[in-house]
C-alpha cells in the first residue's frame, strides 16, 4: 500500500511463560494462574513494572467464561496495572498478540505485558457459553453452539476432502505423542487409533476425542520495541507478519468446507512478512486445531497444501514434514480463549531453540494460527522469526 511507512517499526516477543494446562486447576484462582506466568516473564527479563520497564498490559480473557463482568477488572493488580494502562482483547489470544504488537509498533509503548487466562472448568458446560454467541432470532433457537457449528464444518469438510475418520483418529494419536514431550501439555496419555474411535460421539462426526478437552491455564509474554528488545534478551523473536479476517455470521452464508477468512488472514500476514510460498517458508507451524478435522482444513487455508488437498497432505505425512503442532496442539488441551496464544508461545519456544525433545531443527521462521468464534469465523495468522538482527 502506498501509504505504508518506509520502514515499519518492529515488535519482538522477548519472553513467554505458560502454566501447565490442566482439566481443573481447582487449587488456584485465575489471578494465581496469571501471577505464576507473569512472575516468570519478569524473572526472565529482569523487568519491573513502571517507567523504563513494563509500561502497560494487554490482557486476554472473556466475561462469559469468567462469569464476571469486566473480567480484566479482576486482574488489574497481578498484571501491574494499578495506576497504569491495561487493555483487554476479548477474543482468542492470538488477537491479543496482534494488538499488543500494534501498541508497540505505533510508538505508544516500548514494553508491554501480554497476559491471558481462562478456566473452562468453571463453566458447567462450554457449549452453554458458546450457545450464547448465536443471535436470539434464527440460530440460537435451533440450538447451535461452537461444537454443533464445528460438526457442521466437519461434515462439510469431510464431504469435500474425503478425509476418513481413521485419519482424524491418527491426528489425535499424533497429538498425544508430541504432548508427552511438552511439559505444559495437558493430555499426555498415549492412545491407540481404536481407543480414539471408541470415544463417545458428541455431534456427528465429532467424537469426544476429536474435540479439545476442557482446560484451565494462563500465558504471559513480554512484547517490546526493537530497541528495547535487544536490551532485554539475546533471543528476541520478531513479529514479522500479522493478518486476521472475519467471515460472515449465518452458517448458510459461509462456505464451511472452505477457508475464506483464513486465506485472507494468511495473505495479509504473508504479504507483510514477504512470504511467497508458505509450503516451504516455515520451519515450525502451530495450528489452533480445536477439533481434529480443523488441522488439515486450516492447513489448506494457510497454504501448507493446496485447496482440497488436506486428505492427500495427511496421507503424505504433511504434519510431520512441515513440523506442525509439535506442542501437541489444541487437541492436547488449551482453553479456547488461549488456543492461538499457546500456538504463538510454542512458536517462540521453538524459535529460541528451547523446545527440548520436541525441538524442530534449525527453526528460524514459524507460523502461528488462532481462531475465534463459531467454526473459525475470525481467523488470525502470525509469522514469527528468530535472529539477533531484525529481518
Amino acid at each position, binding site marked *: 500500500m502506498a501509504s505504508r511507512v518506509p520502514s515499519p517499526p518492529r515488535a519482538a516477543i522477548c519472553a513467554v511463560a505458560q502454566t501447565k494446562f490442566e482439566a481443573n486447576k481447582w487449587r488456584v484462582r485465575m489471578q494465581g494462574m496469571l501471577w505464576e506466568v507473569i512472575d516468570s516473564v519478569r524473572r526472565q527479563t529482569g523487568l519491573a513494572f513502571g517507567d523504563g520497564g513494563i509500561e502497560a498490559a494487554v490482557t486476554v480473557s472473556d466475561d462469559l467464561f469468567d462469569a464476571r463482568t*469486566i473480567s480484566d477488572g479482576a486482574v488489574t493488580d497481578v498484571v501491574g496495572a494499578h495506576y497504569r494502562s491495561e487493555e483487554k482483547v476479548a477474543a482468542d489470544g492470538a488477537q491479543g498478540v496482534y494488538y499488543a504488537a500494534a501498541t508497540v509498533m505505533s510508538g505508544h509503548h516500548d514494553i508491554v505485558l501480554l497476559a491471558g487466562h481462562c478456566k473452562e472448568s468453571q463453566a458447567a458446560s462450554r457449549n452453554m457459553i458458546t450457545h450464547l454467541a448465536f443471535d436470539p432470532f434464527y440460530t440460537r433457537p435451533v440450538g447451535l453452539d461452537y461444537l454443533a457449528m464445528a460438526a457442521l464444518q466437519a461434515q462439510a469438510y469431510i464431504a469435500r476432502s474425503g478425509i476418513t475418520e481413521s485419519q482424524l483418529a491418527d491426528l489425535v494419536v499424533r497429538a498425544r505423542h508430541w504432548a508427552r514431550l511438552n511439559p505444559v501439555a495437558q493430555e499426555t496419555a498415549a492412545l491407540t487409533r481404536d481407543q480414539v474411535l471408541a470415544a463417545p460421539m458428541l455431534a456427528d462426526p465429532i467424537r469426544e476425542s476429536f474435540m479439545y478437552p476442557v482446560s484451565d491455564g494462563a500465558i504471559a509474554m513480554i512484547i517490546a520495541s526493537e530497541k528495547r528488545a535487544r536490551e532485554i534478551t539475546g533471543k528476541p523473536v520478531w513479529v514479522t507478519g500479522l493478518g486476521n*479476517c472475519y467471515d460472515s455470521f449465518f452458517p448458510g452464508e459461509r462456505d464451511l468446507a472452505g477457508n475464506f477468512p483464513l486465506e485472507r488472514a494468511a495473505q495479509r500476514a504473508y504479504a507483510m512478512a514477504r512470504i511467497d510460498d508458505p509450503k516451504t517458508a516455515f520451519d515450525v507451524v502451530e495450528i489452533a486445531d480445536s477439533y481434529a478435522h480443523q488441522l488439515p482444513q486450516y492447513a489448506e487455508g494457510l497454504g501448507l497444501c493446496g485447496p482440497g488437498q488436506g486428505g492427500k497432505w495427511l496421507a503424505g505425512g504433511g504434519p510431520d514434514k512441515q513440523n506442525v503442532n509439535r506442542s501437541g496442539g489444541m487437541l492436547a488441551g488449551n482453553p479456547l480463549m488461549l488456543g492461538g496464544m499457546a500456538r504463538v508461545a510454542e512458536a517462540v519456544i521453538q524459535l529460541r531453540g528451547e523446545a527440548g525433545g520436541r525441538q524442530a531443527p534449525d527453526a528460524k521462521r514459524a507460523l502461528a494460527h488462532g481462531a*475465534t468464534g463459531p467454526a473459525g469465523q475470525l481467523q488470525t495468522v502470525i509469522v514469527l522469526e528468530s535472529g539477533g538482527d531484525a529481518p
Partner: protein
Amino acid sequence: MKNRNRNVAVIGAGMSKFSSHREEVNQPEMIHEAVVEALEDAHLTMDDIDCVLHGNMELFEMVHQPDMWHVLGTGAWGKPGIRLTTGGTTGATLACAADNIVASGLHDVVLAIGFEKLQEGHTTGGITNMADPLWGRSLQTGALTGTAAQKLIDQFGEERAKYAAMKLRTIMDENAMRNKKAHRRLGLDRRYIKEAADNSPPLVGELRMIHMCSQSDGTCAVIFASEDKVAQFNANPAWVVDHETVHREETIVFNPGKSTQRVAAERLFARNGITDPRREIDVFEMYDPSAWWGLDWLGDFMLCDGDEHLSMVENDDITMEGTIPVNPSGGVQASNPIGATALVRVAEAAMQVRGTAGGHQVPRPVRRALASGFGGTLWTVLMLLSKEKPQP
C-alpha cells in the same frame, strides 16, 4: 507527546439515535445506523475501511463474542478486526486502539464501533457482577454510588454542593436539548434547580435519580485514518495528539491516593505541554455517569485546587458559551449506551474540532478538545484531539 510512528486523525463519526428502547431495530441493525452515518460523514464507503474494531460489555446483553453476529451490521465481513472490552471505558479503549493500529502502519483506515443495547439485559445486575464473588459482590450496588455526593458535601457544605451538582445537571440538560441524538432531553429550568433535586427520589444518600445517567440503547462509530489517507481523501481531520489510560486495583477501600482522573490528566498534560487546561483546552467531553461524579472529576481533570471546580459551575464557565464548555452533547447524564458511551465522548470532541456538531457546536473556534472515558473500578482513559497536526 509520546513517540508516534505516524500521525492519525478522526475523519468521520456516526451515532444511532439514543433511546431507552430501540425495539424497532436488532443489535446489528442499530450498529448499521451508526456505521452508515460515519461513512457518510467521512465521504467513504465500506471498501475504504481496512480494519473494524468492536466493543461492548457482553454480560449486559448476554451475547458471547457479539462481534461474530454483529458482522452483519459492522461491515467487518472479509476484513481484519479486533474486539476490545474494558467495561465503561470500552469506547475510549477502542479509540486508543484505533489510534495505535493506524499509527503502527498495520492499517490505514480503522473503523471503531462501540455498542450497547441495555434494554435487552439487566444493567445494574450486570455491573454488580463485576465485583469479586468472594469479597465484594454482596456490597456492590451496580453503578449507583453515593460516595461522590458525600465527599463533596463534606468538603463544601450541603447547600453549596447540592446546588452545584444540580446546576451541573441542568447545564448538561440545556446542552442535551440542542442535541437531537440525545436520549434524555428533560427541559430542566434554571429557576428550579434546588426543587428539581429535592423532588427527585433518592437512590443512595444524596445521589438522586435526576443526578444519575440514563440507561440507553445506542451505537457510536468513529473512523480513524493515517496522515496520507487524510490527504488522499481530502478529509476534515481532528488529529489525535495523545492518549492515556490509568486503571487501579479493585479494592477501593484499601486504596487511598490520587484519583485516576487526576493522574491521567497530569500525565497527559505534562507530556503535551499543557499547564493550564482550562485555558488551553477549548472543549471537554467528559464521561460523567452522575452529576456528582461529573462535578468531582471536573476538578480532577481540570487540575483545580480547592473549590475552583464548584466556581466553574457556579460561574457558567462550563456552559456552551463559557470559557471551557463541558459536554456540549449533553454528556452521559443524557445518554449512556455503556459500550458506546466513551467512544461518543471521542466522537463529540472530534465533531467540535471538525466543526460538524451542528446544533450543539460551541460558538467559537475549537483548536483542542479533550475526551474522557470512565469504567471498571474508577478507571480513566483520556484522548486529546487538535485542529493542528501534531509535529514530531
